[in-house]
């Protein structure tokens, strides 16, 4: 029971972060338009900040996109195979996909460490506006690129969870079609 509670808490949290990012995006863009036309002074940092929010929103939400079957897959072979064959194929595909996600997460982390040494310019501007000359140093670009390893690791874990479901179905005698939820309609 407790793992469903944790699961639900994680989902609610992630969902809240995503909504906040989208609200942030639309707010910054609207403010930018108002500033440019109404007050004739563009925000130096708005464009950059929006791009970073998009990167984070995209990688964080990939796990939900995967769950809902936003990414198409062929099911011809799985439909044609007997129960264990289909499940075995799903497990094999899942292992490969999860491996790829973890690999990308690892290399994404290395890339972020290598290339993310600069302070984020947009936040430096904002700090400069608020604090003036003695502004604290802005967070590093690492924290922008960190979205990729974080999102890919989440996605990988989600796929591992699916593999576990396939394995359970294998032993309990259920079929692949039984456990693929209706929301995954697209991937059928």
């Amino acid at each position: 029971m407790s793992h469903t509670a944790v699961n639900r808490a994680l989902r609610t949290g992630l969902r809240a972060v995503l909504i906040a990012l989208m609200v942030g995006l639309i707010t910054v863009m609207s403010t930018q338009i108002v500033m440019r036309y109404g007050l004739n002074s563009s925000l130096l940092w708005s464009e950059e900040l929006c791009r970073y929010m998009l990167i984070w929103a995209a990688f964080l939400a990939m796990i939900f996109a995967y769950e809902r079957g936003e990414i198409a897959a062929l099911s011809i072979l799985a439909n044609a195979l007997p129960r264990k064959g289909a499940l075995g194929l799903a497990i094999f595909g899942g292992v490969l996909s999860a491996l790829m996600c973890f690999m990308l997460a690892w290399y994404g982390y290395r890339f972020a460490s290598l290339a993310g040494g600069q302070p984020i310019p947009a936040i430096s501007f904002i700090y400069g506006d608020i604090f003036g000359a003695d502004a604290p140093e802005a967070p590093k670009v690492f924290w922008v690129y960190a979205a990729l390893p974080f999102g890919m690791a989440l996605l990988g874990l989600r796929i591992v969870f699916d593999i576990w479901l396939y394995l359970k179905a294998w032993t309990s005698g259920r079929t692949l079609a039984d456990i693929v939820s209706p929301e995954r309609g697209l991937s059928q």
Partner: protein
Amino acid sequence: MTIYVLAFLGFMVIGIPIAFSLGLASVAYLIVNDQFHLMIGFPQKMIAGIDNFVLLTIPFFILAGNLMNSADLTRQIVRFAQMLVGRVRGGLAVVNVVASMMFSGVSGAATAEASAIGSIMIPAMRRDGYKPEYAAALTAAGSILGPLVPPSLALILYGVLTGTSIGDLFLAGIAPAFLLCGLLICYALIKARREDHPVPEPVPANERLGLTIKALPALLLPVIIVGGIRSGVFTPTEAAAVAAVYALFIGVFLYRTLSLAKIGAAFYETATMTAGVMLIVAMASMTSFILGIENIPQAIAAGLLDFSTEPWVLILLLNVVLLFLGLFLEPLAALVLVMPILNQISPLIGIDPVQFGVMVVLNLMIGMITPPVGLCLFIVAAIGKLRLERVALAVLPMIGICMIVLALVAFVPAVTLTLPSLLSGSTP
């Protein structure tokens, strides 16, 4: 390269999601070719593929569409279409097409369109005695209008990948969309006469004014977007943000159907759908990196030119190749893959990049309504609870209609370029 293609096809056939198959095949390529140290290039390419200011239009346009849809706008549009065109034989089929056309101005993706219009029109047509596979197929064909009418996610991505003006691309898609819409209506009318489809009840006179008032703001949205971009008032990204805010205002103040919970859900849906798009773009960026390593774009361009230098032969050849790719690939992934190649070829053909963009997008969109990977076909079949094969068969004549429009787009520049050039003179 053979390794890559075989790996990709293999992964896809065993049921790995197609976007993952693109990524996995890229990894497999690096392993087999002993170039694993290049793995570090993948995250960089994936982020670079997403990190683009113009791509921000995508979440904003998706948000505008989601807000309009959760404000129950789709139902208003369908009723409005029924009021306008619903009183002929086969009326509901015509309403389906016209409503798809109207919804296109709100939605930028064919899949969103297929599920929004399909969930209303397929049950409605079935109730009226239409064959369900016909209803589903017509909805799928109509959903192609979505990416042709502004806003269009595919045209945006094409613009990003080629540096073509988004405003011009948006304008160029409009005439082909009307053409396709008109031909689909003709088809529906002829079929109605032959199969004796019913004439629907007229919309009561006292509802008409209210319906018009409610449908107009939605129809204005593409005008605001294109007008704003073309007149130079907004950048495409700003126009997209304005569209989203506009949709929010209409939903909250005009329709009064948007609660806070619905708005929250629409924002969340938007993040999820955006992530779906970005995942595809990111994974395809890995493949495009591999293609770059192997100089494939240059090789294919050279090969094509060896084959022929006659522009019309090359255009025909490109269409065949794109249609073939569209059978297997999701349009946005296909765009990321083929544009580096096509960027080499299009200047040699001497085709206008705006016309070329509409042609490429239409090609790939036709793949959305053909098996084996036709997302719109999957969606309408799921809504109608039909077997995919039946819908795929019913959609065949409509694919023929799409081909006619495609041929006109490919070989008659005026079809796409008249509108952008007409409106370029009037801009300040």
